[in-house]
């Protein structure tokens, strides 16, 4: 029983070892990777890039899996002065791929050493590129872009500080990124690395510079605020002036028209009267007489004292009552 148990145990162990060895001949290559087979540490044959089940010699051959995908490189943010001596924090990232697995394997062995090599090369190229250019070249991209202008600031003359103005550039961000990429790509190709893209992810002011930037922004805004206030006051004054003007125009025009109309009216009335009173000599005479009578009525009031001579027109009639009636003298 005891011996048989040992035998069974031994055969199980043996079976496992054989099975393992057999299974060790097979390996799966994942869709995302390529494999380099090494024999006692030395690469043999071409890298296997075809995914699926593959075969190798057991025990003496090892497999080394190497990623086939685009890989990330996320640089650590670095403080760099630009050409115009502004300290900025630049954070870069890159996409890269191992396109020559054998070279990569021989030169770098694994991804960790690749990352540190990328850090060295891309870091220094970024530093060089940033230090070679003014800040604005790193910030802006399209040198032809014209900024939209705020409707409210439409009539602010350009050149009033930096408000609404994009400083001109010569190269722009994309050119600088390309510059970094092309310089680094050559150096990385030696390691079997294909650099797809390098981008400046973040570009921010150094905290020491920020205060100065804020001060400038504040003074700029104050300028705009003052301009708005002054515009308001100016426009208000213009409206007040317009009011004076309109009032004077309206009132004087009305005065002129009123005087014209009244003059016309008086003239017309005078004409009508004159025409009537001069139509013939009798009319004039009759008018005189009527007006005299009217005047008597006005003049002779209860305050007046009348002295009549019997010779007068009124009493003349009385005196001559016995005599033959006579014509009245014309009134005067």
């Amino acid at each position, binding site marked *: 029983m005891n011996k048989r*148990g040992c035998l069974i145990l031994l055969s199980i162990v043996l079976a496992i070892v054989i099975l393992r060895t057999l299974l060790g001949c097979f390996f*799966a290559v*994942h*869709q*995302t*990777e390529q494999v380099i087979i090494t024999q006692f540490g030395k690469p043999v044959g071409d890298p296997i890039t075809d*995914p*699926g089940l593959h075969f190798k010699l057991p025990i003496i051959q090892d497999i080394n899996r190497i*990623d086939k995908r*685009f890989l990330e490189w996320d640089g650590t943010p670095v403080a760099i002065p630009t050409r115009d001596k502004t300290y900025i924090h630049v954070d870069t990232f890159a*996409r890269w791929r191992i396109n020559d697995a054998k070279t990569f394997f021989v030169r770098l062995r694994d991804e960790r050493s690749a990352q540190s090599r990328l850090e060295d090369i891309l870091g220094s190229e970024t530093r060089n590129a940033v230090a070679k250019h003014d800040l604005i070249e790193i*910030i*802006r*991209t399209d040198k032809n872009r014209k*900024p*939209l202008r705020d*409707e409210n600031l439409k009539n602010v003359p350009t050149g009033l500080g*930096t408000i609404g103005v*994009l400083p001109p550039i010569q190269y722009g961000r994309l050119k600088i990124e390309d510059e970094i990429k092309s310089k680094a790509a050559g150096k990385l190709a030696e390691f079997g690395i294909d650099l797809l893209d390098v*981008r*400046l*992810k973040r570009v921010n002011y150094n905290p020491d510079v920020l205060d100065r930037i*804020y001060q400038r*922004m*504040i003074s700029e805004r104050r300028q705009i605020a003052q301009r708005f*206030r002054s515009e*308001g006051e100016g*426009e*208000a004054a213009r*409206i007040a002036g317009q*009011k004076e003007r*309109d*009032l004077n125009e*309206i009132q004087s025009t*009305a005065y002129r*028209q009123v005087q014209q*109309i*009244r003059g016309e009216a008086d003239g017309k*009335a*005078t004409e009508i*009267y004159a025409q*009537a*009173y001069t139509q013939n000599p009798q*009319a004039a005479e*009759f008018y005189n007489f*009527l007006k005299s009578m009217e005047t*008597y009525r006005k003049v*002779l*009031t209860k305050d*007046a004292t*009348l*002295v*009549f*001579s*019997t010779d*007068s*027109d009124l009493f003349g009639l009385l005196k001559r009552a016995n005599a033959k009636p006579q*014509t*009245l003298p014309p*009134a005067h």
Partner: protein
Amino acid sequence: MSTLPPILESSAMTNQPPALQTFQMPHIPVRTIAGIIAIIVLIVLAWTSCYTVQAESEGVVLRFGKFLKTVEPGLHFKLPFGVDQVTVLPTRRQLKLEFGFLTPGYTNVDQPTKDPQQERSMVTGDLNAALVEWVVQYRIDDPKQYLFDVRNPAQTLRDLSEAAMREVIGDRTVDEVITIGRQDIEISALARMQELAKRYMLGVRVDQVQLKNVNPPAEVQASFNEVNKAQQDRENAINIANGDYNEAVPRARGQADQAIRAAEGYRFKRVNEAEGDVASFNAMLAQYIKAPEITRTRLYLETMGDVLPVTGEKIIIDESMRNLLPILPLTGKPLEKK
């Protein structure tokens, strides 16, 4: 060290005959045990070889690491023991990345930001600083690319989104960024992100870029508010002036019209009166011409008859009396001689 005792124990167990004996003691037939084991194995097999793909997702099947097929939602079978591997991707779900801020309760692990402070601070094209928060909506539209062409595609999308947004912000003035250019920024950033996502073979489609809070830095916020206030002040001053204008001018217009109309009324009055006067005069004149003397006398006497009764003092003297005037009781009243 802690794992050693159980191993020792178990190896001791296998070498001890009594333990083996007690283990074989139950009178259960070997066939039954084998049957039970077979059933368990079958259940495990069945369990590990079927899987479901949710309605919003798509499954990508690999056999020995090689891409085999993509499968639609539903119940599916695969080869067990790691021969077939299935990755399920939520291809129909709108996924979201947040930049510069955090919404609690997310389900997508890539959604939140690690460093919102750093992410939202940007430099504008006129070298001002601004804080920009935004959201990117995307969908996985090529699961094969998403899984096999790029490692960590969501992080890549985050990186390129930040780069693209800064590119766009870097070409705009702070006023455009904060107020007038928001829509333009969303459109440009979206186009740029789509372009980069394609170039990086991410297998995602960027659907939307939405700007959230866009502010000047806290330190300069007050001066931006001051500009807004000044703008209000300007509108206010203009409104007040317009109010004054509108208060005075229409009234003056009305008053002018009033004066003109009154003058027109005066004209009518004058002319009508004149014509009336003349008409009455003409009528009387016609009669006068027929008998001038008697009419005159009549009018004279009528006038006297009306006037004399109301006149104060009346003195009648004979024509022969000449120098009477000195004895008149002069009362200081004007004398009327007739």
